[in-house]
């Protein structure tokens, strides 16, 4: 069984977002990490490796430094890392990203593709289903549980007020929720091997059946008209009362002032 996991390197927003003095986001000060939903997808794939001896290939598209998340994935136990990087692929929206990744995946054998539901920078949740559409395979989004039964995969699919148990014949694509599992840590031996592991690097020329009109900034149907870092309304008052009674007095006073009570 062959599994491809699509992962993305994203700026870390956990443990504090850094702001510039003008209230805008300081991206340079934030660490780059493996996107959490993708990591859950990787863990799901590694469990299939543990159980069924699945071969796990991790694939990412990004700048050359995105190879860091591939090495992390290898250190966790993935077998092979592929980096898709090329200047002409930059500035892609979800359509152009998904055509690019589908073009890379067409070079590979696979039974299952797992992506995270969404990345914490863009939050769109679109790339997974769009890759499946380009490849002509079924998609199951929002997976809370993944099981294999012969040539079929059984998935618990989350909805707003229910879940469905779904079954489909592979190949298919699944998007993983981070509550799917707790990803394992890298092992010391794995880290050692990953540092020296060879990462396959593909560029534009390596993409299969992808039209130039569908890649990069120029091939993106959506265009940014305006972008700004959101300046928040800012902090109001903050008090450090001596006693709980004082704290309550303060809150009641404010609620009264605003006619809430």
């Amino acid at each position: 069984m062959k599994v491809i996991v699509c992962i993305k390197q994203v700026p870390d927003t956990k443990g504090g977002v850094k702001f510039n003095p003008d209230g805008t986001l300081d991206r340079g000060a934030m660490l780059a990490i493996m996107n959490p939903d993708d990591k859950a997808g990787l863990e799901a794939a590694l469990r299939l490796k543990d159980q069924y001896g699945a071969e796990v290939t991790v694939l990412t598209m990004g700048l050359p430094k995105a190879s860091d998340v591939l090495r992390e994935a290898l250190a966790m136990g993935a077998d092979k890392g592929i980096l898709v990087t090329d200047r002409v692929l930059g500035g892609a929206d979800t359509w152009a990203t998904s055509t690019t990744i589908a073009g890379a995946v067409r070079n590979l054998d696979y039974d299952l593709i797992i992506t995270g539901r969404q990345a914490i920078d863009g939050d769109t949740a679109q790339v997974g289903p769009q890759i499946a559409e380009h490849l002509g395979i079924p998609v199951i989004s929002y997976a809370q549980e993944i099981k294999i039964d012969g040539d079929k995969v059984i998935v618990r699919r989350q909805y707003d007020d229910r879940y469905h148990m779904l079954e489909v014949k592979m190949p298919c694509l699944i998007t993983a929720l981070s509550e799917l599992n707790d990803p394992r840590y890298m092992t010391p031996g794995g880290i050692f091997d990953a540092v020296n592991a060879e990462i396959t690097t593909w560029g534009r020329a390596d993409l299969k059946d992808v039209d130039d009109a569908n890649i990069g900034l120029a091939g993106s149907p959506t265009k940014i008209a305006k972008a700004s870092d959101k300046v928040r309304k800012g902090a109001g008052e903050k008090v450090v009362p001596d006693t709980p009674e004082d704290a309550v007095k303060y809150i009641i006073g404010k609620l009264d002032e605003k006619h809430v009570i």
Partner: protein
Amino acid sequence: MQNLDEYKGVFVFAQQVDNEVSGIAYELLGKAKDLAEPLNAQVTAVLIGSNVKNLCDKLAEYGADRVIVVDDPELKEYRTEPYAHALSSVINEYKPEIMLVGATAIGRDLGPTVSARVATGLTADCTVLNIGDFPLEPIPGKESEQKHNQLLMTRPAFGGNTIATIACPNNRPQMATVRPGVMQKIDPIKGAKAEIIEYNPGFTPNNKYVEIKEVVKAVSDIKDIMDAKILVSGGRGVGSPENFKILEELAAAIGGQVSCSRAVVDSGWKPKELQVGQTGKTVRPNVYFAIGISGAIQHVAGMEESDIIVAINKDEDAPIFDVADYGVVGDLNKIVPELTKQILAAKAAKAS
């Protein structure tokens, strides 16, 4: 190349589940009416399901001029494939200029699949939609290249820290998903009727049809936190599921409802329906109490539009204080019960 001028009208995916129209469908119709006005266009609801024709009148009451119904036994429960086939066939046949879909657990699966199939752009989780020019300002010397009457789609990204306005100038339809609870529905017009078109593109199961083995509905009589005027929201700092009792008591005293952060749901203390934030619900109550919530940006993105935010946290540096109108540094275990007591006393005093 598409002939963009062929594409007319504002379409809304009228999500229904178990033969009941989802609230988001009415919200989208309300917005679609706004957008249709400057375009001088019609508002069309696309209703997909099995035995759902009875829902057309409701869609008319909430602003649909026309309803296209795709009714087929294959469409009884939501599944990506037959629904994507239904909606993309409607798009190819009726050529909308704008296609709006709710950013629900259904729409965020259907939207991307359909947009890839009809080869157009899709902007996710929009919070503002309007009609305008692209580029926003004409480029000197290239004034004639500025396009008018474009859908401008504004969305937060980066957990709500950045805001982008996006257009889709060269492809049709212009597609957007919209977060529930953001757009306003209109007051229903009793007795309104819409033109009804029945359309069936034919459904032949193929490799993309998944099989539903089981449907498990969450049995719950929990009121939707998106409708609450006052929310008493707890985070990991509440300490234990049992300790949420003091929040329940405060909520009862002040006439509010309890909600929570993602950490609480992840720990299994509260159901996902009560989760506020980027991966939960967007709320904008009159008063939001953030109790023992540190204030990760993903949480803040879901509650920062609340009118009044009161934060109680023992950590003076918690980021929640950056968005709170009234921040109190202290022990929630002492403050919350006392607050409940005082509110009840104040109410009793007013009543007498």
